[in-house]
């Protein structure tokens, strides 16, 4: 059936075997599966590899292209990095679920038709929910249910759109479209839900920080970036995405600034970073799409690195709030250095992968003369340094002395962090390593003296702003309301009010009707019962013949009188 080894299948098989194997065999499977999948990814040639007819639809489970291979490569690499980070600490079922989740992401990357695309999409939704649940706390359970509801709802919306497109166009190909009618809007909304676009961005910062320290590393990589790939494949140049992206960029910064939980800060900054990519896809030029793809690649690495750093801290200390942490650089120097490298990369500091990829998006905006977009992205670049670049390492590793003296990360966690740190710097110093695999030819030169100077000024003065404004950023034991307040509180309260109101109304009605019936019954009993008190009711008495005859005579007399008169 297949001419090549499907990489998603490799991941699924590996995931299944992880549960069966023990000891070194399991380790071998955890570390080996993503590498075999990576090899399989690079065996896939351009174009549709095989077609299977199912219900008269030509299903194309594997279609290769440079863009698809690029995303599948980073997903497989990330599965390896996550596996290395997690294999000694995570439960086997978390690893299994995470690998099937990764299989879903790789499957979506190569899906040539909308049906395959949808199946892998839902596979991701299901198994990422399991990864959230692996957090093991009541909070994780509740957040997992909310996460699942959101993603299954998104899946339904996506499915409605796919059905519409299939019926109205007759084609199930994954191909570029614009949101011009109901069907395409549904597809776009379904994908944007997975990209954590407004107004449902809150699912991300709600669920990811509730997962285990190892689970959040996997979660940070796949769902949103698969959505980015889907947008590049299906909606390149869709104008609405520019606005959506800019909103996400700013939303992420503002909420991260308000946040106290270290992993939630990172979660908000995923929304921020995906906003850059969504905006680029909306711009839609070759430079912009290259930028979106390159930034997604780089982002997966440094964001996972940041989550690894935070995860190591949580694993060692049990704390995740900035108010509990601080001063950890003393005893966790490696975790701190890796966290700082990730923070510099996400901020787009020169010589890191963030610089060589994010500036492509700004360049695309400048080339298209989008003044507002360009300056918003520049402001956002400064804001990223503010909320993730400095705030995260500062509050976790420096700030005050929390008195905590944990050991540094376990060796496998450390190895994974060093690996990703090295990749972040490698792609920053030798951007061509990534550029040559981008979907379109790259004519972009990231390192010009002027550009480097501009970004250094931008970032260093954001740093100055951070330290001058520190008093304004004192961490508080708070959370920030988001749009999810509408369904977590408002709808819940409305439903509750309706329920209790209805119940009260029902009870009141019942009381009223009951008492009316009761009164009737009492009345009836008085008149008809033979057992009321000492005398029977008036209609139940046995009257004597004499009095009956007398009453009849009276009635007849009355009748005659009335008749005569």
């Amino acid at each position, binding site marked *: 059936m297949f001419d090549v080894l499907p990489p998603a299948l490799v991941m699924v098989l590996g995931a299944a075997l992880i549960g069966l194997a023990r000891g070194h065999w399991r380790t071998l499977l955890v570390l080996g599966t993503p590498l075999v999948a990576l090899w399989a990814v690079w065996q896939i040639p351009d174009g549709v590899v095989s077609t299977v007819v199912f219900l008269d639809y030509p299903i194309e489970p594997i279609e290769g292209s440079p863009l698809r291979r690029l995303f599948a490569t980073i997903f497989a690499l990330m599965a390896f990095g996550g596996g290395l980070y997690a294999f000694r600490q995570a439960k086997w079922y978390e690893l299994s679920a995470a690998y099937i989740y990764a299989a879903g992401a790789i499957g979506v990357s190569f899906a040539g038709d909308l049906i395959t695309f949808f199946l892998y999409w839902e596979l991701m939704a299901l198994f990422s929910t399991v990864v959230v649940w692996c957090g093991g706390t*009541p909070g994780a359970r509740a957040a997992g249910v909310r996460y699942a509801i959101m993603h299954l709802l998104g899946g339904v919306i996506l499915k409605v759109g796919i059905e519409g497109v299939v019926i109205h166009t007759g084609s199930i190909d994954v191909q570029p479209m614009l949101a011009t009618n109901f069907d395409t809007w549904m597809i776009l909304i379904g994908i944007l839900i997975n990209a954590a676009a407004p107004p449902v961005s809150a699912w991300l910062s709600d669920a990811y920080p509730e997962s285990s320290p190892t689970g959040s590393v996997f979660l940070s990589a796949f769902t949103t970036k698969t959505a980015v790939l889907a947008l590049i494949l299906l909606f390149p140049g869709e104008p609405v995405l520019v606005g959506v992206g800019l909103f996400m960029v700013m939303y992420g910064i503002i909420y991260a600034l308000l946040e106290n939980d270290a992993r939630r800060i990172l979660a908000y900054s995923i929304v921020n970073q995906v906003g850059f990519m969504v905006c680029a896809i909306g711009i839609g030029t070759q430079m912009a799409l290259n930028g979106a793809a390159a930034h997604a690649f780089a982002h997966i690495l440094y964001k996972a690195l940041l989550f690894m750093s935070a995860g190591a801290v949580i694993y060692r200390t049990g704390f995740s709030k900035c108010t509990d942490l601080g*001063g950890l650089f003393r005893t966790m120097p490696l975790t701190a250095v890796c966290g700082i490298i990730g923070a510099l990369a996400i901020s787009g500091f020169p010589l890191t992968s963030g610089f060589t990829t994010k500036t492509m998006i700004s360049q695309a905006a*400048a080339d298209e003369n989008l003044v507002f977009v360009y300056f918003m992205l520049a402001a956002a670049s400064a804001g990223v340094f503010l909320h993730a670049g400095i705030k995260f390492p500062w509050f976790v590793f420096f700030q005050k002395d929390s008195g905590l*003296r944990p050991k540094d990360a376990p060796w496998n966690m450390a190895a994974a962090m060093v690996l990703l740190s090295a990749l972040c710097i490698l792609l920053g110093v030798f951007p061509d390593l990534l550029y040559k695999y981008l979907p379109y030819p790259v004519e972009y030169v990231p390192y010009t003296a002027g550009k480097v*100077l501009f970004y250094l000024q931008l970032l260093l003065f954001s740093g100055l702003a951070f330290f001058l404004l520190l008093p304004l950023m004192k961490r508080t034991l708070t959370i920030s309301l*988001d749009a999810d307040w509408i369904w*977590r509180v408002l709808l819940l309260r409305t439903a509750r009010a309706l329920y209790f109101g209805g119940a009260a109304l029902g009870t009141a009605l019942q009381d009223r009707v009951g008492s009316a019936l009761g009164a009737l019954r009492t009345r009836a009993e008085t008149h008809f019962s033979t057992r009321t008190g000492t005398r029977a009711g008036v209609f139940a008495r046995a009257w004597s013949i004499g009095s009956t005859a007398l009453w009849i005579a009276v009635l007849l007399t009355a009748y005659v009188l009335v008749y005569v008169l």
Partner: protein
Amino acid sequence: MNDNRQDNHWLTRPETIRKLWWGFAVVLALTTGAQLFIYVKGYFGVDGWFGFGAAFGFLSCLAMVLFAKGLGFFLKRDEGYYAGGDDDV
């Protein structure tokens, strides 16, 4: 073993912090001053001005922090806000 050193780790000593601030100030001055010698291409005119990146970075951060602070008055809730509302599924 670190407990007796915890309050005077060299990085946390006031004199180190003072030196770091001075170092930071020098770096800031250098990155701004370097624009005298290095041409920064302005795509929209204004972004090529002297020190534009520095001013823009600083001011946009100021604006974002103040905006977040203002928004915080409306959006911030106690940590137990949702947990207290027994919305646990």
